[in-house]
């Protein structure tokens, strides 16, 4: 009856989409930090998000650190300047990358011009749909602890990398880096989620324990 008004309210515009994406990044990083024991469990508190109990750090320093990264990420995402976000988990002793979480970000151009009235419903995702997809990924991240090698709490630290466009504005805190790939690592691909304008793939690669 009102195909143009009702869906648009629940629809997600580009700005909202980048908001969702960067929020997802923030929660995933927090989950990884908690699940992989980069910081002890005491540093985290439970918040409700995506219909799940999510763990978010409550340590002021870590919060500020993640916040700074997230602000910049959000700026990049909304200007479509990055294609990958990497969370590399690094051994404090050797500096080796032991785990590499990769989030691929794709811009999916919505085909709004073709079909306006009839097929808007399958094309345009609602917030609920997106949330369900994100929920599934977060669950997978949580479950990944079962197959990933055990990491002793406190022995590891992390680095955040992005694959940015060459013409992106880069603040001075960000420096050029290598890709921190893991040689001959195992790779596990997770589910992906997509908004109307973005698609995010999640992938973890890790070093096999017995090598």
């Amino acid at each position, binding site marked *: 009856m009102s195909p143009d008004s009702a869906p648009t309210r629940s629809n997600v515009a580009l700005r909202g989409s980048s908001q969702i994406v960067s929020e997802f990044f923030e929660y995933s990083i927090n989950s990884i930090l908690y699940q992989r024991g980069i*910081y*002890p469990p005491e540093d985290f508190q439970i918040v409700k998000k995506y219909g799940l109990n999510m763990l978010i750090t409550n340590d002021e*320093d870590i919060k500020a650190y993640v916040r700074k990264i997230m602000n910049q990420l959000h700026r990049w995402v909304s200007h479509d300047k990055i294609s990958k976000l990497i969370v590399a988990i690094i051994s404090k002793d050797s500096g080796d990358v032991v785990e590499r979480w990769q989030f691929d970000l794709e811009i999916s151009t919505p085909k709004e011009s073709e079909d306006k009235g009839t097929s808007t419903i399958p094309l345009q995702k609602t917030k609920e749909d997106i949330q369900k997809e994100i929920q599934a990924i977060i669950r997978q991240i949580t479950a990944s602890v079962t197959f990933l090698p055990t990491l*002793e709490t406190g*022995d590891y630290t992390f680095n955040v990398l992005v694959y940015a*466009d060459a013409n992106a504005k880069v603040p001075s805190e*960000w420096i050029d880096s290598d890709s921190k790939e893991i040689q001959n690592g195992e790779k596990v691909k997770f589910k992906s989620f997509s908004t109307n304008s973005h698609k995010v793939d999640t992938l973890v690669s890790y070093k096999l324990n017995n090598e």
Partner: protein
Amino acid sequence: MTSVFDSPPRLSSNPSRTNLSYQSPIREKSNSTLSLTSPTRLNVVHSDWDNSTIHNNLKKNPSFTSNNLTKTDRFIPSRYSSSNNRVSQNDSLPPPNASPSAHIKARSQIIYKQSVADACGLEVGQRILQYQPLPPQSKHCVQLNQNSQFNKNSRSVKSTIDPIRSRKISSNPERVLDAPGFIDDFYLNLITWSSDNYLAIALDNSCYIWNASSGEVALLTECDFGISSVRWSEDSSYLSIGKDDGSIEIWDIETSSKLRTMKTQAGIRIGAQSWSNHLVSAGAKSGEIFINDVRIKNHITDVLKNHVGEICGLEYRKDGSQFASGSNDNTVCIWDSRSSIPQFTKTTHTAAVKALAWHPEMNSLLATGGGSSDKQIHFWNTTTGARVNTIYTGSQISSLHWGSSTSFGNEIVATGGYPNNCISVYSYDYKIKVAEIENAHDSRIISGNISPDGSILATVGGDENLKFFKVFNNTKKLEQSSTIANGKNMSKIMTIR
């Protein structure tokens, strides 16, 4: 573009000279084919350059032009490409009027870039950026470690540091005694501490017994020769005194009487002795080791001639089946007590080996310490002859004694000389110095001896002081007393002659 081209020729030094070379065909060979084939290029040059300066330079050294004539062709295109790189990085295409080769080069460069990027799995025009600031350290982590409740996380590092803090030994001696006339000679062993808590010390040619329990001092004997070594028997009933003339006196401590004098053929001083039951092995300055059986008249049962330098360390293993000898010839020999040829001869040390210590529990673990030019403690497996470990101490080692602490387990204490005459305690498992007493003596420490309960180290130095330091805390009282009891029983059975 013109601005780029304008600047170089105005310089009068080297750069302009090289630039000069491609001007030459225009001035002198303007009619040649060279200039005709590529007129556009030459026109550019012509318009950009100040002819007068070049002409002057030409006049100054005409030979220059002929030499560099061949470079003409090569130089111009390279200037095009370099200027392009500088002006705009994104658009690496040469200007439309550049030579075809320059275009080809620029194109192939782009293709090359792309293929390299593809091979690296990168997209062209992409940067990998890392957030540079380091992630914060968790504060909880630190606190938890201090509480040592969850210190699983960084045990490997923490656990070795924390005990060092707790492992403190007092740098003040428990007691200081005067030792006037003590001979400052590294190769002699002039103090010995018995399991009955008597400490015997030789000062010049007299021997004193200090009762460590009561603090009384008694003169045992004054010899006609200088004393070069003293040693208690295992059961602490007898004291053997080695002298400069090569003879050994056996004294009964209970009655303070001399039981016998054993002469060796060597006739030179006995620097080291060690007891095993009724056997006294004595190392002479000649490098010979005499195995004496105190019970029989012809007391020398064996003469071991392997060393070529003065014997300054001799130590039986607790069970008596092996013994080690250290010598001024920088070697350590490990002997089977039944054999007269050494099981192993170790030449790893680079200085005289005086300090020898068998581990009280691990039978085949021997520690040996080298002298002033060696400064190493080597650990040996005496069954296989393998060197198990090495600790560099940084000073001459005059004695080694095993001990243990609750935080580190096995430890070894070394007494040293120059530079700071220190007593150092090393952890055997971690191979690190866990405690030290610097400047324990004003002069180098000549000898060290551990008390029967294994806690006090008696050291005597060139400063003629006898000092007592508490270096180990946990004493092996029970075990020690039992061995004493055993020794007492044995002494009743064992008689000399």
